């Protein structure tokens, strides 16, 4: 079974520039998550999709961050304009449509962003 795919793996931009990250979840996984992980900290949830609808985006800085999941499969996360504090690893995860026992999240390798 193929895992969660993310691209690019690394990105270096200057502040005030724009950047976009792409995620392809595991086939059949209805739930998709984007996390931000700053060095030395645990991942922080930015947004959660159920199919192509947003379930939780309470921690997404909506003045600069946006995300979409058209057709309920792939997803993109955009930052415009980027700030220095956005330097982090952006992780995408997906979950299968199971019920009962807590869903396991499967994470991609992440995109490491450096804002100069």
């Amino acid at each position, binding site marked *: 079974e193929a895992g969660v795919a993310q691209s690019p793996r690394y990105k270096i931009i200057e502040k005030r520039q724009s950047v976009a990250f792409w995620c392809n979840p595991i086939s059949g996984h209805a739930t998709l998550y984007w996390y931000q992980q700053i060095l030395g900290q645990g991942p922080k949830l930015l947004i959660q999709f159920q199919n192509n609808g947003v*379930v939780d985006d309470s921690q997404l800085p909506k003045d600069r961050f946006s995300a979409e999941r058209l057709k309920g499969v792939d997803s993109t996360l955009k930052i415009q304009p980027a700030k220095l504090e956005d330097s982090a690893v952006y992780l995408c995860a997906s979950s299968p449509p199971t019920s009962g026992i807590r869903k396991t999240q499967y994470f991609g390798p*992440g995109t490491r962003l450096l804002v100069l």
Partner: protein
Amino acid sequence: LAKTTQPISMDSYEGQEVNITCSHNNIATNDYITWYQQFPSQGPRFIIQGYKTKVTNEVASLFIPADRKSSTLSLPRVSLSDTAVYYCLVGEANYGGSQGNLIFGKGTKLSVKP
């Protein structure tokens, strides 16, 4: 969501058993306990999940006392490749809802030495 407390770091030697304890005093009735492992430059990976008593899989064991206010992840006979950050998470089993989201702390950085 219940807050978790775990040691910042732990050291061990190859072949030893490692036990990482996590405190979650405010765990709710519907909450499950889940542990993830993260290697450098990789996303977290699910290790084990439990609700009460003991759960064992091919990778680890999870011990949960009757009051469920803490849990212990046990890694038998660790090797150098077990060097990673281990996260303890507590949350509801809520399919599709935001209440089921994971909240990661800083985790426990385990260093296994030869």
